[in-house]
């Protein structure tokens, strides 16, 4: 009995040791996008993306580090090999696919406007309004492509955009529905609400890796399937949202 335990322990240590030597995955994220990735008062990185990254690492028995990076430069930083995989709620877009490769989606988002409660804002009459979004996001791109007669302001972080919505500098913000949802239930968002139907509802969010890094991409895909199948994904989902965001 004792011998058996010893053997099991040795084998496991050897396996773990191998994994340790072979697999170090360096993740990058933004750290300013609650509830998906954010830094708390103790300086710790938390959020849905971070939990997913950690769950993938447990599944792969890999050693993982996760660092933060300004959103603007997050793809250049990946391609500059500052980290190996981006788990930062990044939507799959054709433009980004020219620069990076994506794993299978790990959740599906929608783009929806938020504006002050009681305002007569409507997504179909935007003329003359001041609209905000984060720079280099699909929300920012959507505004630039679809809105011609309103002023568009692009922010370094989503937090700064919300500050300006609260202060009245913006008439509305276009952002990921789940991020807006989280903000609306916070203290800062209590005077605001969703407006209209989502303007885009098939926003597939995935982990990005460098172009051609198929080994890592396939490994992450496998692990993603596994954590969805074994219930780990649902546990993380329910920690943040009372509804299913995987779809």
């Amino acid at each position: 009995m004792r011998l058996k335990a010893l053997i099991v322990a040795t084998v496991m240590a050897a396996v773990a040791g191998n994994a340790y030597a072979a697999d170090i995955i360096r993740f990058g994220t933004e750290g300013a996008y609650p509830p998906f990735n954010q830094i708390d008062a103790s300086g710790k990185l938390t959020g849905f993306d971070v939990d997913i990254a950690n769950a993938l690492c447990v599944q792969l028995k890999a050693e993982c580090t996760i660092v933060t990076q300004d959103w603007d430069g997050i793809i250049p930083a990946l391609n500059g090999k500052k980290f190996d995989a981006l788990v930062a709620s990044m939507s799959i877009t054709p433009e980004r696919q020219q620069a990076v490769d994506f794993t299978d989606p790990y959740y599906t988002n929608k783009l929806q406007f938020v504006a002050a409660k009681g305002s007569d804002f409507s997504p179909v009459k935007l003329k003359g309004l001041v609209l905000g979004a984060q720079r280099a996001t699909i929300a920012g791109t959507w505004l630039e492509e679809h809105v011609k007669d309103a002023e568009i302001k692009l922010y370094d972080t989503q937090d700064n955009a919300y500050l300006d919505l609260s202060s009245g500098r913006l008439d509305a913000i276009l952002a990921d529905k789940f991020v807006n949802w989280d903000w609306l239930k916070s203290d800062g968002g209590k005077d605001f609400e969703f407006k209209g139907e989502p303007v885009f509802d098939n926003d597939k969010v995935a982990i990005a890796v460098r172009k051609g890094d198929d080994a890592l991409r396939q490994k992450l895909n496998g692990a993603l399937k596994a954590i969805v199948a074994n219930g780990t994904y649902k546990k993380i989902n329910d920690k943040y949202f009372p509804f299913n965001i995987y779809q």
Partner: protein
Amino acid sequence: MDLHGFGPQLALGTLMTLELAFASLGVGLVLGLLGAMAKASPHASLRWLGDGYTTLVRGVPELLVVLIVYFGSSAALGMVTGWVGMETHVELDPFAAGTLALGLTFGAYATEVFRGALATVPKGHIEAAHALGLGPWHTFSRIVLPQLWRVALPGLGNLFMVLLKDTALVSVVGLDELMRKSQIAVGFSKQPFTFYAVAAGIYLLLTVITGGGLMMLERRANRGFARARS
């Protein structure tokens, strides 16, 4: 004042700001000395190099230098290692990139300070050193540098104060220094004025302490000169 528990984070940020400032100072002093020597060189190509360095770096925003060094360094180093046939990836983290960028900026301005100071070292002193049989290194370290230091100190001190404030720019590439820690705290607390005012107060404090330190250094460097002057 309610810091929402972010006090220790701000303290850590301040520490990082100081580390960055002193690391950049080290890089900048070396670059400044090299720049001044290049500009005083008898070789036209070295003088050209020195001029190019100061003109380029001093004409471009510090923020842009930070961004270029951070995003460009991997690409540029990749190109170089590619030429020599190596497939390595060299990367600069935000701290290294910030140190290099701020050091480059400091060095460009320090070049002018050192050049001015170099001109005040009497030629006779250098000739005397040669006559005594001192080699070029000893002439520089024993005769030139101590005099250079005294004359250059006030100018360098001013540049260090500028550098201290420029560290805030490195927050843009994600270094967790004081400015970025403040931004994170604002994101949490939604109280921008409170946290940016606290950050301003900390920067002021650093400026005051640095100013005091510089005065002490100047007094020390001027030992033996004060009496002769009055």
